């Protein structure tokens, strides 16, 4: 309740006035500190009246590469001359890495003079809550919008060409809407009693197993197993939650799925509810995805009209209530346990594990949590050849399936692309129009900032011996473009593979990029556990020292040596941080020092 009530108050006043928060505490019979804990944690909430204009500029990865940081500096300078009170700030990834730099302008100025005269706070601010989005625009365009120019187009995700009818994931490509929800219809038709439905449940799980559908959120767990675990878990109430928080820099494929094919996600979730016996589900979507939120909400309504969602699905006693939970913001909400905490009106701080969500999830009840894409693949897998069709989508027999990658950075056509599992990285770059401006490949971030920067070619001695053994004899280095994208293969190589791939050309200043990534982790650390809270800050300080050229070559070598403070701290963060954020936070710096000594050397003090 707290989060929803705070949204209401902020929508009405433009911020959260103290007296309203005190009133809320009384209404909900909640201590004031609980309200404060939530308000102060999420960047979306503000407790002071907003300035006339707020300008949010993305400064992560692809946007940083395209000059997001410089844009902040330039806009700040220009805003100083304005009569209006303008606040320009760099913000974490807005999920539009394909059209960098991403900017959102919030104009809180009254729309008409009468509103102003009547002091109608509601009208005054509600107008300002629709941001004006500018994607890949010039500083001049942003300046114009910042200064109130209404003629410049508001960039939407819907402006991108809709190619969803060409996606393999789309079971209903080029088909009328009435044919959707085939899997739900099939489940309900499978039998009247639970025994008959159990047969259908087994069939669906078997199809997911045959297709080898892996979790698309990054961890790559086997989906059928998770579903089976929640199904078996003891609990009167169970939940299905879809993680659509997609806040990792460089990642934006869920954005496309939520916008274009919400029916696949809704169908996947309802089917999951029927399989695991959950009667309630939440689609957790980051608040910056306004179009996507609207798209999913509209689809849920449509599904209800079709009778496949809500009370008494298709006239049976089975029910499944589904709603969108709009995230109050922050990368950490994408961490599955933190996401659950946020739905529970808590600070989005990851839980200590075990227990796992499958047994102790939302409100301590068994909960199935999957990524957007994972749910979206379900209809195609269960309805086409019992999963065999999906398995056959890969490039060769040893791989199975297909998936989406978000590709951004120095490529000509950054995009969310659907590719067969096993596609080579070089091929993926070609699919995205090849390297930008004829640059040579310098480095790749294979999992947003989490995996650090992997060089285009790297020497064999960088790998542990058991990896080297797998390579052809006589090879002296590995060309990353030759690597086949498969999560299991990557793990054998001890490489991370996420959904967001950022390509860096040889003109990239990786020291600056690494520092931006370190700052991202510091900014997004929830602050719960000591190693991540203090450790991520130390990492940024070291990065800044390097960037400011205030350390010598010897000092850098000492810092990065295996017994140096960086490696020691990195090890402590990996072994003791509660969640994955603290675990991976040192990677941008450790990989920079390990793989790009020339770039580092150019920054050292002589």
């Amino acid at each position, binding site marked *: 309740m707290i989060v929803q009530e705070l949204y209401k108050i902020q929508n009405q006043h433009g911020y959260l006035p103290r007296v309203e928060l005190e009133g809320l505490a009384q209404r909900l019979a909640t201590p004031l500190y*609980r309200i404060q804990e939530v308000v102060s*944690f999420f960047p979306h909430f503000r407790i002071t009246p907003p300035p006339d204009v707020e300008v949010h500029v993305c400064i992560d990865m692809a946007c940083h590469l395209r000059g997001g940081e410089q844009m902040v500096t330039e806009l700040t300078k220009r805003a100083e001359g304005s009569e209006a009170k303008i606040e320009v700030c760099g913000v974490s990834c807005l999920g539009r890495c394909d059209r960098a730099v991403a900017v959102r302008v919030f104009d809180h100025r009254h729309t008409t003079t009468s509103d102003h005269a009547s002091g109608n706070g509601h009208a005054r601010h509600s107008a300002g809550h629709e941001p004006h989005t500018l994607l890949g625009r010039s500083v001049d365009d942003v300046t114009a919008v910042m200064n109130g120019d209404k003629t410049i187009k508001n960039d939407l995700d819907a402006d991108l060409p809709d190619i969803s009818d060409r996606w393999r994931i789309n079971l209903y490509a080029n088909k009328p809407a009435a044919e959707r929800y085939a899997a739900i219809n099939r489940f309900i038709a499978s039998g009247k009693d639970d025994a008959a439905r159990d047969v259908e449940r087994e069939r669906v799980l078997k199809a997911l197993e045959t297709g080898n559908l892996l979790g698309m959120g990054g961890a790559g767990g086997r989906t059928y197993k998770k579903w089976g675990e929640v199904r078996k878990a003891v609990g009167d109430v169970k939940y299905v939650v879809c993680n659509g928080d997609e806040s990792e820099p460089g990642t934006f494929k869920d954005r496309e799925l939520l916008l274009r094919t919400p029916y696949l996600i809704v169908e996947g979730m309802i089917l999951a509810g029927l399989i695991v016996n959950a009667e309630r589900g939440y689609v957790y979507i980051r608040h910056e995805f306004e179009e996507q939120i609207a798209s999913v909400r509209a689809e849920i309504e449509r599904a209800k009209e079709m009778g496949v969602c809500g009370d008494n699905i298709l006239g049976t006693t089975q029910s499944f209530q589904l709603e969108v939970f709009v995230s109050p913001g922050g990368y950490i909400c994408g961490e599955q346990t933190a996401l659950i905490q946020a739905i529970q009106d808590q600070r989005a701080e990851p839980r200590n594990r*075990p227990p796992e969500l499958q047994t102790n999830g939302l409100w301590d009840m068994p909960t199935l949590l999957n990524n957007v894409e994972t749910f979206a693949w379900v209809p195609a897998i269960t309805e086409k050849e019992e999963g065999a069709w999906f398995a056959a989508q890969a490039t060769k027999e040893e791989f199975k399936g297909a998936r989406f990658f978000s590709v951004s950075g120095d490529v000509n056509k950054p995009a969310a692309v659907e590719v067969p599992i096993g596609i080579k990285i070089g091929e993926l770059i070609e699919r995205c129009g090849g390297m930008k401006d004829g640059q040579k490949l310098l480095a790749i971030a294979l999992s947003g900032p989490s995996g650090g920067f992997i060089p285009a070619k790297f020497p064999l001695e960088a790998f542990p011996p058991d990896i080297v053994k797998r390579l052809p004899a006589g090879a002296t280095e590995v060309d990353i473009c030759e690597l086949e994208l498969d999560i299991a293969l990557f793990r054998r190589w001890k490489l991370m593979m996420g959904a967001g791939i950022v390509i860096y050309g040889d003109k990239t200043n990786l020291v600056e990029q690494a520092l931006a990534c370190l700052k991202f982790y510091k900014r997004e650390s929830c602050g719960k556990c000591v190693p991540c809270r203090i450790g991520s800050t130390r990492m940024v300080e070291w990065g800044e020292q390097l960037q400011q050229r205030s350390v010598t070559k010897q000092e850098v070598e000492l810092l990065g040596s295996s017994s140096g403070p960086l490696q020691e701290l990195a090890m402590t963060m990996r072994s003791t941080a509660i969640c994955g954020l603290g*675990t991976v936070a040192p990677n941008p710096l450790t990989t920079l020092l390990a793989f790009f000594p020339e770039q580092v050397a150019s920054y050292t003090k002589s």
Partner: protein
Amino acid sequence: MADNNYFDSMSAVWEEEGLFARDMNGQLIRAEQATRKDFDERITLTIDGEEITVPKAVPQTDSQGNIIIVDGSGRTIPRRTTIYDAALLLARKKNPQNPRAELNIPTVCHAEHLPPVGVCRVCSVEVARLQADRKDPTKMREVAGEKLVPACVHPVEPGMIIHTHKSPNEKAAGRVGQQVKVLLELLGGDHLPADTKDESELAQLVTKLKPTLGIDTQRLVPLRPLNYKPDFTSSLINVDHNACILCDRCARACTVIKENFVIGRTGKGYSTRIGFDLNDPMGESSCVECGECMLHCPTTALTFRKPIDSDWYREQLKLPGRFEVTPEEMANDRLLRALPYRYRQWNQTSVVRRKVKAGDELCILGEHGNTAFILREGRFGIYLQDPRAGHQGQRAVGVWERIFSGGTVKKIPELGAPNFEVSPADLIIGEMTCMNHYPRTATIRALNDGEVLEIRRNMLYTLQRNPESREVLDSVYRSRALSNHLKRVPFFATLSDAERKAAQDFLTQVDPQTKQPRVKLVRLQPGQTIFRQGESANESQSGFYMVRIGHVKVSQTFGGEERVINYLGPDKNFGELGLLADYEELRDVIPAGLENRRTATCTALDDVELVVIDRDNFRQLVHESKPLRKVIAQQTAAIMQQRQDAAMRPTTPLLEEFTSQGLYNAQRLLVLDLESCTRCDECVKACADVHDGVTRFIRDGLRFDKWLVASACRSCSDPYCLVGCPVDAIHRGGERLEIKIESHCIGCGQCANNCPYGNINMYSEEQKEDYGGKRVAVTRSKATMCDLCHDVPGAEKEVSCVFACPHHAAFRMSGPELLKLVANDHK
């Protein structure tokens, strides 16, 4: 630069589940609320190479470290055993006196009585399990988790192999030690000043582990040190956010222990801080300044502003032979050193060093007291007599009056030889009255020149929070309480001296079969059931109970309706019937069908202490004593008569009302006869007249028959209000049983919350205080209550409210007196 372990350590990222997220069959383990059954389930694990079998659950403890007991059979609340708990159990095996000295798991954010949060990660340990070797499945191999786990949170599972930084497995020990070292370096670098003195738990821990782990707190210091402004707005506590490590202890103390709900975390990431209400300055928040957060703070983030200023202390120091004790000196005391440094600072005025000469009196039998004496030097005689006896007619003067009147020395009558002697080996004396609020049970005099530290009740209360000193105090208290009780309990009154001694000796011996003491002391909370009607009484755990402290309700069910048939106060006993039904003396009195069954339900009405003798020992005791059997037969006949009376009469709510209103506990009720009272309010006016214009009671309250029980202090025999006052500002005074609140009350409201009858009020008082050298008027909250006109001359016979009543409608009397009066009316 091939020198990196990026690839080696990447696997930690993929470890989606902990090593023990699943059971032996690969099924995920659901975390369930622990049940009583878990007490009996055993889990075997290995800690630092030593195998130990522990129960799956351990009993929950309260903030005083007492195991929370649910009912008279000693049942407790189960909590899932964690790795930390198991390590402590192992340490206790090795060193029962001081188990924590053997514990190799350092902690910062963990406190045993608080729900664990696992945020500091300093208690991280390596967890491993045996798995079949992939190449040779006949061989078992120890496989460790990629991540370390926090011992304070992680439950124990069968087959766990735990390594701390002291493990004989050097690789694991090195790994754990290395991470603990870096964590403490991070905490130290950010939050400990470079010139830190060992004033906080964190600083002490770093100092202690420095040589073992090679900690260098200057290695990972921030480039830009934290620079939050200090918050000096609270009159009690200074807040230094720069020292705060966000261990969450203060927040949990505020919400879980005191239920004040003021402190939380505010902000996110590196700029997270503790916050009060809507991140208000502490002094402007709804904080009641109870000091609980400060006691829990392991750093110098929450520190005391200034020592408590108490009248008692000032008056004490005026007396000869009384000296101050500095916080540093307290650190040299065997008991007081267990208190946190800042607590010693804050409550310096709760300790006085007394030099005594032979014949000096420390306390007198029958007095109410709120101090205990730590014996440092000399011998002391314990006399079970009141020196004032035989001086009838002369108004007895309590120790308080003597102190406040400037310490006039009274002629001390001879008491003969002491009943027994104590010396510094006995550690402490006089603690019982502080712990149970009952009058002193003995007179104590110095036998030669010596020295004691006189400490007030709040010190004793806080001492019990330290596990080591708690164990010492508890064993002292239990042994004295038991022997004291057996010496005076009326159950043995009809025995001859020799018979009584034999019975006492028998009970104080250890049962050779069970190796357990024959009597035990059980503490109960209000509302806890001791046994239920109809329950079997013929089990080895069934007991015979003697009430030491508090009141027990005896009720029976007749045709589905519960009737209170009796209530039992101190020194009464119960539970014998069910144990002895086969005795020939009883055969005739116990109705058929009730043999070996509890004939009534017994429930604790308030905080109750019971002396319990189990079935077999009790039967043995009674078997050997004919006089005891006679006593029991008489009691039984009386009980059966009561039972019959209760069954015969129509429902009279008298006793039900009496117990539910808590009147049994009252010693000085203000009652108004509503048939005579004209509501003229003279009583209220009189109260206001003698108390600076503000009345201390309200002429309203519950009715008991035709009587109005006004909301004035009842002077409970077991006062709830005294429990937990952090500065010992409230206690029982001299002879009139009044409860007094001293001027150094900090206004935390604990006593007002404790009083179930709402007879303590909080009011605001303006006072001048020093702020940065200036005298500033500030409003402070204080507690106030009826003091039985303690300071009014001539009011010792009749308190003002009663004296002022023109209609002879107001009376002061005890609860049982009122009951008698009403019962007589009904006849």
